[in-house]
């Protein structure tokens, strides 16, 4: 009879990612989950602790502001980004912040990108639900991402219950990718986009998909790898809404080769992020 301690050891072994892991999709506890945290330090300690217990090595972080407005003002974006920068500095570089902007105010968005990516060394751009990806006001943001050689992580879902007015569908992300073939776009929420969403972006080689969003449904990561290729899938948790370990299990427990798992867990996103992310010496 296996003791509980032996069983837990056995399962931990099965969950071992076999190397470093970058999480493409993390929010501060300040944004989601109703945590009672003690400022940036408390946020870093608890979120980092949970991530490291699960074997996460680095995490791309984007704050959507403490009040999580769907169409934030430039001032709210700036506050959110300052919080993410503080988490980066407090975490000794564990968190790799993305710059959160709203396409509703494209000029302000570009200025904020210049401040955060150009000036502060953020490593990507985050777009949420202010406007759908078909909106031309995204275009200057995407052009700036190309200039600065950073990826754009675009929220996407295909909700049976109905998307929000500014919430992008996977087909909207495909439209964005076709308008900006030089941009590198990470479409968030594989499970939320579902198999139809994977087909929507299949012909867009500059679209990658993160494995977050929704429950740990059997076979979804395998499906994404089969339809897009392992080189276009990146691990993402959407923590704290989702659990680092549960989402990691979607990749580690998938019926994929070790090489494909390594690509999803580390190599692909490492290749998308600029060198200043400092991932070269981690392996």
């Amino acid at each position, binding site marked *: 009879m296996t003791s509980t301690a032996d069983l837990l050891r056995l399962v*931990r072994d*099965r969950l071992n990612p076999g190397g470093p892991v970058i999480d493409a999709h993390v929010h501060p506890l300040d944004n989601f989950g109703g945590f009672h945290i003690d400022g940036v330090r408390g946020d870093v300690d608890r979120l980092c602790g949970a991530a490291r217990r699960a074997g996460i090595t680095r995490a791309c972080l984007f704050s959507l502001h403490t009040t999580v407005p769907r169409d934030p003002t430039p001032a709210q974006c700036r506050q959110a980004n300052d919080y993410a920068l503080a988490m980066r500095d407090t975490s000794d570089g564990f968190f790799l912040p993305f710059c959160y902007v709203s396409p509703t105010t494209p000029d302000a968005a570009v200025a904020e990108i210049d401040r955060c990516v150009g000036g502060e060394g953020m490593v990507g751009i985050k777009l949420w639900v202010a406007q759908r990806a078909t909106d031309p006001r995204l275009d200057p943001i995407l052009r700036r991402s190309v200039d600065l050689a950073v990826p754009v992580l675009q929220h996407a*879902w295909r909700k049976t219950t109905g998307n929000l007015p500014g919430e992008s569908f996977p087909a909207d992300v495909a439209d964005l990718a076709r308008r900006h073939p030089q941009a590198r776009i990470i479409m968030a929420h594989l499970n939320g986009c579902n198999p139809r969403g994977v087909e929507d972006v299949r012909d867009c080689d500059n679209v990658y998909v993160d494995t977050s969003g929704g429950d740990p449904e*059997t*076979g979804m990561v395998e499906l994404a790898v089969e339809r897009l290729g392992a080189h276009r899938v990146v691990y993402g948790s959407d*923590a704290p809404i989702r*659990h680092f*370990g*549960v989402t990691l299990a979607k990749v580690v*427990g998938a019926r994929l080769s070790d090489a494909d798992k390594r690509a999803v867990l580390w190599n692909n996103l490492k290749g998308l992020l600029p060198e200043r992310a400092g991932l070269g010496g981690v392996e």
Partner: protein
Amino acid sequence: MIDTCVWTGHWGSLAIPGTPSDVIDSVTAVGATKILLSPLNGVWAHNLHAANAGVYAVAAADERVLAAPLLDPTLPTWIEQVQVAVDVGAPLVRWLPAYSGFALQSADEWARIVTEAQRILWVQTRLEDPRRQHPLGVVPDVDAAAVIDLARRHPDLAVVLGGATWKTVLDLAPAILSLPHCYADTSMVDGVDSALRLIDAGLETRLLYGSHAPLFMPLGAMARIVFDVDNETAHLILHENASTLLDCGR
């Protein structure tokens, strides 16, 4: 280790490895030694009871499996089906109120019959996130508070709140703890530190490990326990609580 939430069969909107052997292999691979198995094929059937024979046959052939039949009290044969569960020694029956179309507020007579039969009543509040369902097959979640209200009206009945999110379980923690035989499963408890927060709320003796396989990956279900919970508490969630509960259904 007891996996209290396992299914077998076909699911229309998701390709899943749902044969009994596939499912048993997947949950035992992460340590399950006892499995409470229910038929997915019955969920969308006009007569959901017809699918129970399959899990009874699996349970008869494999001592690791306990059949957990689906019961629909709106079908005229449902009391016969309760008796079948008693006769074959199935300790737990599952209700899917949202799929069968009945309100828990009107289920007192049915709950009384389950109580008299000394079966455990598992009320599944969700099989699939409504945002992810097929657009022509949308089924809303069951109100978890109504499940707890039913348990409160029938304190001798062992009731499991199945498929609830961590926040729902956390909000209902005081009510769950106030009832002697009320439990919740972990199959949809997601989010950072979710199990820890439920344990901090005093629920460590009321949580049952459930994988929701094959719809969900069993390795993920175990991850939320092994990364966050100490060995002693994990033993409660993975084994001891379910063992105590199953004693109610024998």
